[in-house]
């Protein structure tokens, strides 16, 4: 509060700019966008291919984009599990997921995800078979990694909106799986 007061008082920044930017971070960005992207990729194979080839262009088709939004999408399959961390700070795909959860910024997650990912996943309740290859992505440049989770069984015939409702934030960071309905 004091920082905003001092800077607005001095005319360095303005209240309406702070309002606009904060509203984008909290409401116009968020995991509801990520879930739409995943649901569409599950239903539309051509969109999924475009998403994996050029994530920025594919999500722009859905009107999604913005700061910290230069994405690369990595796909979870039966034999590969991806998870994302930023060991240096807290890089995160804002337009698709909003601001990162507190654990993503914690020293425990940042230090351990690159050294013992399965132990970390266990703390999130994710237990993978030994023959699944884990791939950890440490976001150190201006690329923001986004996990396309695996579609669970028992979702055949569901609509895009129904599918999107199954997908939570952790599944798109790779610290969760999408559970069958």
């Amino acid at each position, binding site marked *: *509060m*004091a*920082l*905003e*007061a*001092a*800077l*607005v*008082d*001095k*005319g360095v*920044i*303005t*209240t*309406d*700019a*702070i309002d*606009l*930017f*904060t509203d*984008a*971070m*909290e409401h116009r960005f968020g995991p509801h966008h990520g879930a739409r992207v995943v649901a569409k990729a599950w239903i539309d194979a051509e969109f999924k291919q475009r998403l994996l080839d050029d994530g*920025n262009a594919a999500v722009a088709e859905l009107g999604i*984009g*913005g*700061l910290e939004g230069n994405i*690369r999408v990595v796909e979870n399959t039966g034999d590969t599990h991806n998870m994302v961390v930023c*060991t*240096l700070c*807290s890089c995160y795909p804002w*337009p698709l997921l909003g*601001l990162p*959860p*507190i*654990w993503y910024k*914690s*020293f*425990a997650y940042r*230090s351990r995800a*690159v*050294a*013992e*990912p*399965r*132990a970390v996943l266990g*703390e*999130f309740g994710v237990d993978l078979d*030994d023959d699944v290859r*884990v*791939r*950890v*992505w*440490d*976001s*150190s*440049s*201006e*690329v923001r990694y986004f996990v396309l989770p695996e579609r669970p069984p028992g979702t055949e015939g569901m609509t895009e909106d129904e599918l999107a409702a199954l997908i939570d934030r952790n599944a798109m960071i790779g*610290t969760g799986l999408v559970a069958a309905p």
Partner: protein
Amino acid sequence: MGGMTGFGPIDVDAVESGHEGWEARNQVVALLSGGMSRAGIEEIPPAEYLNAAYAERWLICAERRLVDNGVLAADDLATWVERFETAPDTEMPRRESPEALADLERMVMTTTPMPEPPSPRFALGDRVRVKRMHPEEHNRCPRYVRGVIGDVQRIPGADHRPGAPRTPEMFEPVYTVKFDSIDLWGQQDEPAFDLFIDLWQSYLEAP
């Protein structure tokens, strides 16, 4: 932080303390005023860094940079803190600049891709070693990959080397390099895994 030990289990259900906007709003204030930079966060001395919560680190960084750059006077923040504490009804100052909002909106809502890399020295599939180095200035090469050999998996683009002057010579290809966990950490209790990280060309050498 990568590979440090002793931080304990992950609090997977932790909820932001300054909820309902304050944390995001403070981050926005730090970003808009030019007070926030990764380099500035990393310049916080390690003991202080480890003792501060995430949002506090942004505030520490913003306050120091803005005072160093002469944007704020050293006692400006303290004055406002005292004002809000002694008179909780103190109104937040307001100021508007509607003519600047369209540009800001475009900036916030536009994705900036990485530029194409200028003549990369390494090709896809090349073996590369992360240089042994010990820079004091801001950099984006975590200690845990230094000295380790990996494979170039992708070349996502180019960027200025962090911490270096923004001159054309410092504009470098960035590589996504794949490492085997055994090369990073040795044989462990859990099955081996792959670690991918993006590294600037000057961090790498032929093995």
